[in-house]
């Protein structure tokens, strides 16, 4: 069920109406749990078994951690369970094809059969949500949640299950215990966020996708200018696609009185790679920081180990996004950029470089890294970049309106960064903006509902 479909809208209206009738906390939890299972099972009811397994296993592991005291062993079991499931469903094909390539190198004709698993929607998200909960309990950051329905709701809460944000137990479970009113104020804020997300997805991301898909679909056909603009279009497409989804998820959760964490803070306004990761997919980057980078030692044991920890974190972050070498390479590039960014900071007088210049440099670097993310394979990505620098300038096929829109997006980010558009927070302005966004979607945007990019992860 996609957020931007009539089916979801109908589903939401029914669930929200029931929610308003139910006043007690446990009743609301049960309602939203049932709704979450229906929402997730809509793709394929069999996927629910996997979700139920993760919920039950981690619930029991936390319970046994408290009652038996064998915390380390149980933590290991939980992580192993999660990683085995993730590997089986997400990485089995990747692992098998790589083993087969290695076997082929030896000259043997033997090949392992392809596993043929279907990747369940949102598997990386709900497994990370649940794994984070167990780790938090292990380190004593959260209390054990005895109510299994509330525990299950935390893992499966429908606004976040398909593509995050990756919630933390310490932030979300207390909200399920003491529901905020979920009243008119939340509904108004939630609907506004939802409309913003819808606009980002349908009016912006899907438009940029038309051009990006055309260029990435057959890059050898295009000259430097088109390749460069194709990368630029994808840079904005992925931002609006994912942040649009997040806005919708946060808006829907807000209607039920739940605050989900912010996932994006104008990432293309970042002036360093560290800042970029503090603004892009914040819930994932903070997850990796808290549960991987810091436990590995973070920046505590010297520069070399810090660089090693950054590289491991970034490589795994790349692999988290997809089971293919281009994602690993994308993570590797960010690891290199991030590590070298720390060295660059130490160059004398680097602080005197204007922040606008730094922003543009980081934007360009991030844009080039996205090429590895979007390309079908690492070889395609290198071919794409070679094409950009091979000359052959021709008049680009990007619509002038799209160019204008991209420029406007950047300018909007810039003035928002400096707080020049605070007046847009006024309810009257929001009202007009919401109506204008809906009108734009209805009249100018395409009516085809497309998947969100991050659903594949």
């Amino acid at each position, binding site marked *: 069920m996609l957020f931007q479909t009539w089916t979801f809208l109908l589903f939401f209206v029914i669930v929200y109406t029931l929610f308003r009738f139910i006043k007690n906390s446990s009743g609301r939890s049960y309602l939203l749990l049932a709704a979450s299972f229906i929402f997730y099972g809509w793709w394929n009811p069999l996927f629910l078994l996997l979700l139920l397994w993760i919920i039950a296993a981690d619930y029991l592991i936390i319970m046994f951690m408290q009652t038996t005291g064998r915390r380390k062993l149980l933590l290991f079991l939980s992580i192993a369970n999660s990683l085995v499931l993730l590997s089986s469903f997400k990485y089995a094909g990747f692992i098998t094809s790589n083993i087969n390539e290695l076997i082929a190198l030896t000259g043997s004709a033997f090949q392992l059969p392809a596993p043929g698993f279907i990747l369940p929607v949102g598997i990386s998200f709900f497994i990370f949500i649940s794994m984070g909960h167990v780790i938090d309990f292990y380190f004593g950051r959260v209390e054990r949640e005895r109510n299994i329905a509330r525990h299950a709701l935390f893992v499966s809460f429908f606004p976040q299950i398909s593509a995050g944000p990756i919630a933390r137990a310490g932030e979300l479970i207390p909200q399920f215990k003491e529901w905020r009113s979920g009243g*008119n104020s939340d509904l108004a804020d939630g609907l506004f966020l939802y409309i913003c997300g819808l606009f980002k997805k349908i009016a912006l991301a899907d438009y940029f996708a038309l051009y990006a898909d055309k260029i990435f679909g057959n890059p050898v056909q295009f000259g430097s200018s088109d390749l460069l603009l194709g990368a630029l279009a994808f840079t904005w497409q992925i931002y609006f696609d994912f942040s649009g989804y997040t806005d919708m998820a946060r808006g829907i959760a807000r209607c039920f009185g739940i605050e989900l964490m912010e996932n994006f803070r104008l990432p293309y306004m970042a002036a360093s790679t560290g800042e970029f990761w503090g603004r892009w997919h914040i819930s994932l980057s903070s997850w990796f920081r808290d549960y991987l980078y810091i436990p590995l030692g973070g920046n505590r044991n010297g520069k070399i180990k810090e660089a090693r920890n950054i590289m491991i974190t970034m490589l795994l972050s790349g692999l988290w996004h997809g089971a293919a070498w281009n994602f690993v390479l994308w993570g590797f590039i960010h690891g290199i950029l991030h590590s070298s960014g720390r060295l660059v900071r130490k160059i004398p007088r680097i602080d005197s470089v204007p922040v606008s210049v730094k922003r543009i440099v980081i934007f360009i670097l991030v844009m080039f890294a996205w090429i590895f993310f979007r390309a079908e394979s690492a070889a395609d990505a290198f071919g794409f970049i070679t094409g950009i620098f091979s000359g052959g300038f021709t008049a680009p096929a990007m619509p*002038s309106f799209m160019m204008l829109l991209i420029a406007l997006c950047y300018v909007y980010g810039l003035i928002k960064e400096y707080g020049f558009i605070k007046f847009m927070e006024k309810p009257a302005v929001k*009202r007009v903006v919401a109506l204008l966004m809906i009108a734009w979607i209805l009249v100018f945007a395409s009516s085809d509902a497309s998947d969100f990019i991050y659903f594949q992860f």
Partner: protein
Amino acid sequence: MNKLKYILFTLLAGAVIVIILPVVIPLTGKNNFPADYRIPYYLGEDYFLFGKYAGSVSDGRTTAVIGDSVIWGHYASDTDTLTAHLNSKSATVKFSNLGIDGIHPAAMYGLAGNFCRKFTGKKIIVGINLLWMSSPRHDLTGAKNSEINHKILLTQFTETIPAYSPSSEEKLSFVIKRNIPFLLWIDHLKLTEFREKSFYRWSMDNPSESICSFFKPQINPYEVPAPMDFRKLPKQKIDWIDPGKSLQWKYTLKTINNLKEKNNRILALITPFNIYMMTDESVKQHALITAEMKKILEKENITVVIPSTPGIDKFADSSHPAGKGYETIAGELLKNSDFIKFINE
């Protein structure tokens, strides 16, 4: 309380836009539809326009003629359709062409139910084209088929159409769209005021064109297709569907009953089929089916008129008459006593 006001205001503003806008700014380009008007070919899926036109016909005195491309006149110019010839042969304009190109009777049922609601106490001629019963594929009783026209008008949830299997999201969106005039009006706006339906796709196809040119619709007059040269083709054996099993027939009856329930008087016009293209066995089968249909309709107190088959040169393909064919049929109808009685009553 402020937030409640905010929601109420937004809902109110939304309702005003949704309900009032299509009425105040209908943008049909026409307040009064001219005599012999037919829905332009490129607006065949503009159901907002069709609704307005049907409303105007229901207010007038003419007899509405509904049906598929045979009634619309696929191989005829505006002045060469069946209604155009009926009108030209009558002293005054008496017939309105409410045909829609490519509409299956199952979709016709939806069209009548959703957009002909104002028809009460009116004389209506329902065109029946046996083309839809000429194969399971045409009848929509065959294998799944993605090339169905006017899907939005089909029954979505309550009945099964074997050839039609969209996702539940598609079905739901069709039900919502056809019941909210505002959404139909948006489509109408796009079809009549813009160069293409999607601005985004247009800008992709015309990257260097000025945005302003998108708002200048490019209306090409309908180019009447050349008739098929079927004389060179071997005679075909038609896989006729038995009326008892046919979806065309089921929905034709439902459409007629639906219109009849609203005190409309119905005349069923079974339009001629190009028997010159068929084997003798298929011609016999066609005659049997037509006779059976006539019998069933007459049992329901429906006047049935079956014009005789015009000459071979008056057909444009298997079921569509050419302009001359329409002229012949119109002449014959105006001499048919049942037809005259129906019109003059």
